[in-house]
């Protein structure tokens, strides 16, 4: 008897799956897509982060502690003092600079080492290249890593050309670093050469310290606390790696969350597929119950079906995910084009543990998706289920007031602050809102549909009546539309707002006509005071202001903050910056003003009027926060101070960038040409008009968000699968109804029109609620998630056109899907369809 029942079950399952392989494939694909995206995002992130970690470790070698200064460095005398201490077994000094490669829009990291000291602390860096070390002492020699050699297409003996000021200097690649040294793109030269050639005489950027046995890092840190000048950090290499990884943490979390949303949508697809399958087999399943199949067994069987879908989908997803990750890393880089891990070339490592977790996650989501309808089917009394018109009842327990509770909690959670720098409550808030909306939807549908006017056109009238009679089934279709459309709307609004705010911000940041840089990247591109005068005196130039960019460490667990020395705006008491809120007038007697970017203000936890200490030139200086400005360019924060003050504090009169204002009569091109000529057509000079800068900035923005778009589209596609599945379920369930309608004289066309109307109404309702929900979610994305993740604000911008277009497309798609899914139900013998009601 037992085996007989299994056989029956198998026959039931096999039958429906054989008849509708497309649906099965869709369900499998839905899970696969979610798992694949999760796997890919995770693998790429994990590789990038571990690669970054590896890069940090490979530089620090066996060091117990790393002493690190800001871009302006610290005095080499500190090295001499540290190296002499009895607790220090070995200390390796280094100059560390990013140098622009002429003719390429990228930099290379130069590490100026003392190879003899490095041999004690970072032995693997130069291991085995004994001759290379002596070569390295020569003033024209440089060693480059294999990653750099591959990337730049250079080999030992070639010249590596680098930019200093607006000039180019060439170094001879004496040899390649050993294969195991580092996977970073790195060039190593002698510390004395680096100091001399790149203008860092007397300064160092880091000291890697190996302690004598018996000395703890904590004890040593305490002992030398007083020796370390302000703005210089001392930390274990581990902290160094974490500081680097913290850069991209919020970005990574956001991607992980998007992948999770996709997986969630995949589970929803399984839910609708199984719901559809159960509806189809309702009578057969009830018959099995009558024949003696227990509830538990029936439940297990349906869940097993879900598990099979989950296993197939997850397995496929893991494979696709690995392939996607490989592709993503090769084409976009470890940060998926976002620019966090510039000089690191990641290699993927497929951690089987992680792959397994995603596999299990996919299966679990599929089982959950199947369990809900299974529960309903198993609980129905067989006698009731055998009767027609029972479909509505299946859904009863899935809906109700708990939805409102979810929505209320979601709204409350959105007000919670960030946890550990991540907007976890914000994400949970969105999840709650979504769940709540889906749960409330059937009730809402009931409420709205009961107020539908009865139309004259018979198919429309029928549609209206049908919808009013089955509000809960409508709710399932609605939920699918709602989930995908609201997410799509919220992302569109968020990305649109960001892009719009960025464009406005660029206008505020770039008031001049032309921007001239001595190398856009790196730190060795600069204008000397003489060159600054040269720029001012070019014919056609009305005025030019100069900006110096440095960086400072404000907190030991965070990457350095950019320090911008900018001139005041003409006639203003502050520089031209896109301020948020009022700026403060600063008296000449009080501390000098500093203008903080939102990120820097959040980092320090200060607002306008607060006093802050900034370590400049290895001395702490007190500033008053005179204003907070919006900055999308420097994710680690930026502090602007007056350039005259900066020069007074540091004596550094160099500038990285010139903002050039033209005479009204001067032509941009002509002035550019004259500028280039004035610098001897040096390769390092970059001239961009404000228009070009804005365009390229927005292009970079779009590239960064490319991945977001991909994930978003995936979610929408899965959502549409769900819509189609739920329509199909209803259409199938209503075969008898169609039969009856045909019998009483309706044409197929009219029935199709009726279904189309139903689709349009459901679609329209879903889109309207989806728009509202999407708007709420976008508010959370913009003001909670984004603010907490990246610490920058943006103005809400609703891309009405795109939204309207999407909404129309979705409503039409719903109508068309409804018609198409009904076509199958309407084929076949009318008589048999009616007779089906046993």
């Amino acid at each position, binding site marked *: 008897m037992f085996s007989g029942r299994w056989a029956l079950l198998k026959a039931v399952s096999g039958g429906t799956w054989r008849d509708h392989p497309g649906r099965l494939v869709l369900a499998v694909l839905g899970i696969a897509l979610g798992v694949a995206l999760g796997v890919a995002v995770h693998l790429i992130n994990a590789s990038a982060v571990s690669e970054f970690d590896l890069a940090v470790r490979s530089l620090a070698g066996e060091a117990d502690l790393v002493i690190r200064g800001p871009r302006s460095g610290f005095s080499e005398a500190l090295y001499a003092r540290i190296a002499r201490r009895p607790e220090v077994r070995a200390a390796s000094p280094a100059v560390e600079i990013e140098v622009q490669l002429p003719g390429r829009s990228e930099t290379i990291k130069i590490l100026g080492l003392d190879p003899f000291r490095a041999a004690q602390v970072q032995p693997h860096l130069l291991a085995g290249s004994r001759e290379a070390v002596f070569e390295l002492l020569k003033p024209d020699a440089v060693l480059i890593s294999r990653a750099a050699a591959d990337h730049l297409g250079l080999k030992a003996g070639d010249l590596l050309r680098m930019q200093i000021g607006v000039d180019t200097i060439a170094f*001879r690649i004496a040899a390649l670093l050993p294969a195991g040294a580092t996977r970073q793109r790195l060039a190593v030269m002698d510390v*004395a050469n680096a100091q*001399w050639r790149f203008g860092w005489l007397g300064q160092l950027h880091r000291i890697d310290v190996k302690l004598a046995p018996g000395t703890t890092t904590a004890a040593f840190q305490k002992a030398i606390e007083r020796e370390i000048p302000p703005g210089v950090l001392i930390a274990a290499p581990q902290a160094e790696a974490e500081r680097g990884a913290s850069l991209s943490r919020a970005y990574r979390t956001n991607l992980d969350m998007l992948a999770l949303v996709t997986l969630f949508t995949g589970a929803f697809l399984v839910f609708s597929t199984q719901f559809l399958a159960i509806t189809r087999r309702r009578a057969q399943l009830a018959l099995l119950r009558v024949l003696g199949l227990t509830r538990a067994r029936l439940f297990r069987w349906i869940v097993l079906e879900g598990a099979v879908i989950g296993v197939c989908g997850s397995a496929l997803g893991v494979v696709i995910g690995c392939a996607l990750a490989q592709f993503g890393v090769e084409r976009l880089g470890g940060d998926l084009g976002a620019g966090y891990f510039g000089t690191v070339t990641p290699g993927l490592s497929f951690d089987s543990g992680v792959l397994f977790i995603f596999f299990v996650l996919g299966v679990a989501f599929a089982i959950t998706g199947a369990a809900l309808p299974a529960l309903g089917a198993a609980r129905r009394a067989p006698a009731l289920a055998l009767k027609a018109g029972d479909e509505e009842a299946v859904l009863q327990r899935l809906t109700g007031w708990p939805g409102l509770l979810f929505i209320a909690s979601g709204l409350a959670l959105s007000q919670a602050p960030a946890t550990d720098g991540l907007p976890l409550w914000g994400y949970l808030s969105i999840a709650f809102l979504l769940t709540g909306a889906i749960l409330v939807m059937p009730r809402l549908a009931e409420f709205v549909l009961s107020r539908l006017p009865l139309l004259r056109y018979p198919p429309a009238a029928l549609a209206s009546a049908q919808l009013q009679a089955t509000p809960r089934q409508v709710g399932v279709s609605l939920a699918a539309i709602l989930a995908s459309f609201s997410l799509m709307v919220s992302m569109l609004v968020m990305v649109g707002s960001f892009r719009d705010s960025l464009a406005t911000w660029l206008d505020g940041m770039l008031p001049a006509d032309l921007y001239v840089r001595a190398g856009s990247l790196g730190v060795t591109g600069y204008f000397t005071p003489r060159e600054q005068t040269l720029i001012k005196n070019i014919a056609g130039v009305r005025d030019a202001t100069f900006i110096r960019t440095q960086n400072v460490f404000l907190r030991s667990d965070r990457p350095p903050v950019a320090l911008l020395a900018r001139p005041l705006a003409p006639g203003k008491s502050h520089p031209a910056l896109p301020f948020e809120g009022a700026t403060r007038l600063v008296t000449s007697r009080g501390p000098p003003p500093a203008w903080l970017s939102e990120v820097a203000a959040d980092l320090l936890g200060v607002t306008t009027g607060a006093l802050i200490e900034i370590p400049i030139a290895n001395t702490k200086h007190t500033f008053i926060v005179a204003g907070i400005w919006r900055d999308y360019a420097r994710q680690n924060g930026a502090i602007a101070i007056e350039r005259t003050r900066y020069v007074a504090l540091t004596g550094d009169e160099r500038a990285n960038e010139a903002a050039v204002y033209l005479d009204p009569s001067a032509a941009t091109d002509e002035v550019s040409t004259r500028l280039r000529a004035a610098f001897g057509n040096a390769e390092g000079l970059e001239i961009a008009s404000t228009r070009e800068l804005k365009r390229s900035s927005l292009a970079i923005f779009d590239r960064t968000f490319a991945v977001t778009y991909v994930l978003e589209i995936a979610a929408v596609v899965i959502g549409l699968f769900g819509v189609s599945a739920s329509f199909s379920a209803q259409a199938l369930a209503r075969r008898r109804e169609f039969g009856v309608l045909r019998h009483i004289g309706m044409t197929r066309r009219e029935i199709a029109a009726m279904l189309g109307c139903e689709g349009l109404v459901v679609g329209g309702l879903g889109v309207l609620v989806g728009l509202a929900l999407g708007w709420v979610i976008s508010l959370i994305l913009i003001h909670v998630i984004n603010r907490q993740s990246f610490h920058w604000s943006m103005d809400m911008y609703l891309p009405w056109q795109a939204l309207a277009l999407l909404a129309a497309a979705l409503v039409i798609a719903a109508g068309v899907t409804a018609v198409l899914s009904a076509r199958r139900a309407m084929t076949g013998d009318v008589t048999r369809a009616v007779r089906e009601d046993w």
Partner: protein
Amino acid sequence: MIRDSRTKLSTRRRLLALLASLPAGYTRSAERKQTLPRITNNESRITPFAQVVSGYRLRFPQDEGSHPAFRTEWWYITGWLETSARAQMGFQITFFRARTGIDEENPSPFAPRQIIIAHTALSDTSRGSLLNDQRIARVALGLAGAEEGRTHVWIDDWSLEQDGAAYGARIAARDFILDLRFTPSQLPLLQGQHGLSAKGPRPESASYYYSIPHLKVGGALAHAGTRFSVGGSAWLDHEWSSSYMDERATGWDWIGINLDDGGALMAFRMRDAAGATFWAGGAFRDARGVRHAFEPSGVEFLPVRLWRSPRTGTSYPVAWRVRAGPIELMIEPLMDDQESDTRASVGAVYWEGAVRATHEKKPVGRGYLELTGYGQPLRL
């Protein structure tokens, strides 16, 4: 050597050869560079190296200090230690200074104009092989240096320093610590012609070279977890030059022996690719203080016994009959295995260790023997 500062060092000559090749290599690259475009300000001018010239009279203590204008220089102390328990050990402490000829115009204090290399070894008979350690650093910020005018050369906490009439050395090696004081009992012994020691037939191949034999050793040795008070006798060599090596040399044999009667003997020979002696030299100061310098023909090294290294398979003549003028000595090692294998670092394998000298089977002195170029000819 770069892999780890503590790995072993080659012989002084091998190392000097390596360092001496630096400026030549640099010049070559500078020539190549001139054909390439747009290189700004990358050349550096080299002040010529000072040359060894005949007629110079060594002055003490001024010439005990560093001579930075010369390409290479070393202070080399070898000797025998006796612990209170009467155990005998050989030890060696060396500081090299090398002027690279590089970056003479670079104002950075890190500019690698001068490099100091230190090497130490301990011959412990109970262990049966050498304990080694080495350091290398550029002269920068006072962390390593060689003082002019008096002996004071150091890398971090390793140092050799003149202290009144005596010298103090403190070397904290990986496996042992030497904290020794060397007190001269005799005047310096000038090698060659008034301290100008010829290293080959060509006149430019020469060095300024003096030795201080019969240094009385006192101090402490920490080794294998124990700190011993030690005594003994040692030999200091101080030599500087800008063109030390004759191009024919593929290896050499050298001895420096403190004779029990107060006499002192230094003898060396340079071997060519065929293993034949193409140059030799040395000096002997007898117990009364009368000095004899030897012509190349006056010095003869005759191998007596070979020892084959189980590690490298190289055979070294570790026992010798050495004839230098009127002197004839049998040389026997304190222990056979005093080989240093530095193929992983500098790339040379050589033998340098403590030896006993006998005459007609009676012990007459103790000193050090150095054997190079036996495994492979030294590349120059």
